[in-house]
């Protein structure tokens, strides 16, 4: 079976479209920076992933397939890098934990019940928000405002869809650490979306 001629045309088309490639590169960079928290490492990982992808570009029939694949390569590179510096990440994680705890517990009163201003409201028509480009800008800003460790595990879980064991292994966390981080990330992200979108729009 030989699909080369078909694939090559489409693949070359992907590379030839500079606007597309640079937008893709930007998305990858943002993603890698969130995961690695080091812009230089992120840049290297994206570069490597793009080069591997370009070398095999003829295997891809379209942009969607190309993007999925290039992100899969990037994800593997990120996991490798995170494994290498597992101890380092773990150490810096411990340093941040106190600050984090404080910010999240501000949502609740001394007895652990919602502060009146922070009690979640019902969101009207969330699916319509998904259709709105401005919503995604708010979403992105809210993600970027999460503490790095929370953003990292949230993205690994929800964006890359790694399972809990994989995340714990690559980020040097126990399952209970992971659950704490995801809980905090969700509390904050939800709060931020409500403040800057669902409440603001009402």
């Amino acid at each position, binding site marked *: 079976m030989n699909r080369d001629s078909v694939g090559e045309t489409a693949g070359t088309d992907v590379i030839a479209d500079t606007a597309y490639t640079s937008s893709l590169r930007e*998305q990858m960079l943002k993603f890698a920076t969130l995961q690695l928290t080091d812009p230089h490492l992120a840049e290297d990982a994206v570069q490597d992933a793009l080069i591997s992808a370009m070398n095999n570009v003829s295997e891809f029939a379209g*942009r969607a397939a190309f993007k999925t694949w290039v992100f899969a390569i990037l994800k593997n590179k990120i996991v490798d890098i995170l494994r290498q510096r597992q101890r380092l990440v773990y150490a810096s994680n411990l340093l941040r934990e106190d600050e984090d705890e404080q910010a999240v517990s501000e949502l609740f009163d001394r007895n652990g019940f919602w502060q009146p201003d922070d009690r*979640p409201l019902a969101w009207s028509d969330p699916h319509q928000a998904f259709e709105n*480009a401005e919503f995604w800008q708010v979403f992105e800003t809210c993600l970027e405002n999460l503490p790095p460790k929370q953003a990292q595990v949230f993205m690994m879980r*929800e964006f890359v869809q790694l399972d809990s064991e994989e995340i714990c292994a690559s980020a040097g966390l126990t399952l209970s650490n992971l*659950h704490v981080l995801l809980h905090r990330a*969700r509390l904050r992200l939800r709060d931020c979306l409500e403040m800057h979108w669902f409440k603001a729009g009402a």
Partner: protein
Amino acid sequence: MINCEHVTRLSSEQQERRLSLRERLVLKLHTLMCRGCRNFDRQLPLLRQAARHYAGRRDGQHPDRDSEG
């Protein structure tokens, strides 16, 4: 202690694992009474959908400028 902080943690963990019968009861009973936690519990699947939608958006950050109005 069964308070909102604890119950939102259960909601969050429900996205990760199957809760025990006791945990599900605690979650259910509390969210029946507490509107804030009920809203939180409903929003978690939306957060997941949003994250996946965000990850899956193709061709850059501005899919449809014309339709913004």
